[in-house]
């Protein structure tokens, strides 16, 4: 086991395309680090550079204190799990698992012991004599995992290992991956474009965009304190609602106004977000998580003091445990480059309806007891303690530690 440190790592492809741009990242010993970002953000390239499958154009990568820039993959002591499993089709499951050990000239009994253990851990014992072609997707995925496990490497690298599985299997494999990491405690770098996977699996999550690191933090911190519009829009499902609003300070304290709505801001926000008071009287971009809404009718006492927002429900998505309420805000959609980039690639749950015209389509996640129906008028309450404010020019979160 080892830590992996990337220092100013660049990857420039022929033609001058910069896939990874000055990436600095420290993956601690035993940590589960998830690299997440929309497709083409350079996350897979970064992983393949750690693996040694791509040349490093600039900077330095070290695994366990050793600079590996010029080491071939076989000398880096890492194991990789590929998206489409990359099993050796001409070998049985057993041979697939043992291949890496055989190449390392390990004694036969040791190979058998390790293969047996891994097969047991992954429930592959009955398939050892089969060829990959005779396995289902989930089984192949487990063989690919097993091939990494038997090697007992310094680090696991996983390149979207679950994306070829069906939704239900993906959820259960996600859980298995978590337990596996708990049990083995091996440093893991995991690449995915699925922010749900990133949130559930990662000890820390690294958000990349266009080869540039956006934010590295725990999943909860990414969700609660996104560093900029891109991270705010990319993490979380349904995505955060944005609107261009004006910050005003009136008689009853500070407030944000947009469309014809005015949300008052608690004073604590200004202490939490230093620098926010400088934006009073200016345009900012306001972000509200769908989960910070609640139906006024079914909200309990905890919603006391929350601001109320009367809306007309356009569409409801009933998920059983909760309802996504889609409604229109009479303000133009935020056209900041970061929100566009985040929406392009993220979960396309409510990819903008062309019907909405010059209005923003917002989502509120309310309790299933709310009985909200399409076409109804509904009073929503908003937890104003969790409002997110972004600079309308730079897209950076106002008052975030990293932006001070």
């Amino acid at each position, binding site marked *: 086991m080892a830590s992996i440190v990337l220092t100013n790592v660049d990857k420039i492809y022929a033609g001058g395309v910069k896939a990874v741009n000055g990436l600095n990242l420290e993956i601690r010993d035993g940590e589960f680090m998830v690299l997440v970002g929309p497709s083409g953000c350079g996350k897979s390239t970064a992983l393949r550079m750690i*693996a040694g499958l791509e040349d490093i154009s600039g900077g330095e990568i070290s695994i366990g204190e050793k600079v590996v820039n010029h080491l071939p*993959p076989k000398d880096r002591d890492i194991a990789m799990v590929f998206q489409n*499993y990359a099993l050796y089709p001409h070998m049985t499951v057993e041979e697939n698992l043992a291949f890496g050990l055989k190449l390392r000239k390990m004694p036969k009994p040791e190979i058998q012991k390790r293969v047996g253990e891994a097969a047991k851990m992954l429930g592959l014992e009955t398939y050892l004599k089969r060829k990959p072609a005779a396995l289902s997707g989930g089984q192949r995925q487990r063989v690919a995992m097993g091939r990494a496990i038997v090697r007992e490497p310094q680090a696991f690298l996983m390149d979207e290992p679950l994306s070829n599985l069906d939704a239900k299997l993906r959820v259960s494999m996600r859980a298995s991956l978590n337990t596996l990491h708990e049990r083995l405690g091996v440093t893991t770098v995991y690449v995915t474009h699925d922010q749900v996977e990133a949130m559930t699996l990662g000890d820390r999550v690294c958000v990349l965009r266009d080869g540039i690191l956006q934010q590295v933090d725990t999943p909860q911190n990414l969700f609660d304190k996104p560093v900029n519009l891109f991270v705010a829009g990319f993490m979380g499902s349904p995505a955060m609602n944005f609107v261009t609003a004006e910050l005003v300070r009136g008689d009853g304290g500070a407030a944000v106004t947009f469309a014809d709505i005015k949300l008052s801001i608690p004073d604590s926000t200004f202490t939490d977000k230093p620098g926010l008071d400088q934006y009073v009287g200016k345009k900012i971009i306001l972000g509200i998580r769908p989960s910070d809404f609640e139906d006024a009718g079914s909200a309990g006492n905890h919603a006391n003091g929350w601001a109320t927002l009367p809306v007309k429900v356009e569409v409801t998505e009933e998920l059983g445990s909760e309802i996504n309420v889609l409604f229109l805000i009479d303000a133009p959609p935020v056209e900041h480059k970061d929100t566009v980039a985040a929406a392009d690639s993220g979960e396309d749950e409510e990819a903008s309806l062309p019907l909405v015209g010059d209005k923003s389509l917002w989502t509120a996640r309310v309790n299933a007891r709310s009985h909200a129906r399409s076409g109804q008028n509904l009073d929503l309450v908003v937890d104003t303690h969790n409002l997110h404010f972004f600079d309308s020019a730079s897209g950076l979160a106002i008052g975030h530690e990293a932006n001070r």
Partner: protein
Amino acid sequence: MTERLDGPQDPPADVAGGPSTGPAETPQRKRRLGPSPAVAIAFLLPAALLLGIWVIYPIVYSVFRSLFDATGTGFVGLGNYTTIFSDAGTLTTIRNNLIWVVVAPIVVTTIGLIFAVLTERIRWATAFKLIVFMPMAVSLMAAGVIFRLVYEESPDKGLANAVLTTVHDTFSSSQGYPEARPRGGDQSPVADQGGAVVTKQPAQAGQPVLVPIVGVKPELLPGDAQPAKAPAAGDGLSGTVWFDFTPGGGGTNNAVDGAEKGLPGMTVEAVRDGQVAATATTAEDGSFSFAGLPAGSYVVRLPASNFEAAYGGLSWLGPTLITPAIIGAFVWVWAGFAMVLIAAGLAAIPRDALEAARIDGATEWQVFRRITVPLLSPVLLVVFVTMIINTLKVFDLVFIIAPASVQPQANVVALEMWRVSFGGGNNQGLGSALAIFLLILVLPFMIMNIRRFRREDT
């Protein structure tokens, strides 16, 4: 099944026109799936007829004909077949075919594999592949003519020997004067001694050595040869090797005359008590001198290597090398085909599996040996079997490349079949027997290939 299909069509009146009314027009008769046997036969007939005329009948007739003698009237049973295995000439052809089958497919497949793997990684892969594939566009006949020229004995005409002699001469200079010899007679200061030329009297320092040589072919005299100079008496042991012949007559034997040329590039040895004490090479005017030689008397010797013929390469079209030479031409023609097929197979190998192997700790060679080749094995097998069939049938290359004098040594079954039946033998009984023999040899590989294709289809 039939009932279910018939069911909805029972009330034909409901359906007015449309494509589905076809079968419904004859609801009473027992209907089948697909066309009637008559239609089937009508469609099969042209193909069956052509196959029968061009394939089945010739095979059957060949079998029949192979049981008769040259005239076609006397039944000899399996006599022709026993002739195949008892006649020394046909046994040579069988031996040659065996060499072909063992060597050619392996070489072609290996070279094709190497080219395919290498072209995957180079920049101008397409151009390279095109060039390697080009021989396929040349007819085997033309390829034969080309290689007949390539294998020409004289380095001036044959590419193969030109390359060989050039390479050979780079490493060992062979400035030979074949058939040159010392001037004979008692007057001559030198004599022939087992191919070498030695001075009759031991030579001393300060006393020039004259080595008159005759019998140098004018075309072998180097262009840079200068007129020889009579050696001056110097300090060391020195002398002159020259062509003791004045063009147009005149001149004195055993003396250097004005028009006589020196022989450059001769190796000269100073020998004392049977040991070579010093070696020198003659200059353009034929003069030589031994530097730093201890005083004393020496025998001056021109070793026999001076009088050997220049290296002329190999006699490719001779009886010993003819089969390897023709196999070389065959490889030239087919390597491109193998390369293209294997390259296509290579492109279909999943990149990830190779990368996974690299991460698993395989070196590039191990990746190639344990992942690439096994995954390529179906393609390799197809290429290999196709090549076996091609080598068994090889005819034109042997016919064109082998000169008439070595045809018996180069002969293969297919060529022998033609020679026996039409090319002078005029024994179509034996020819048919050879044809059937060839067919039996090819058949297993054909079946193998067909099986493969069928398995891939399902």
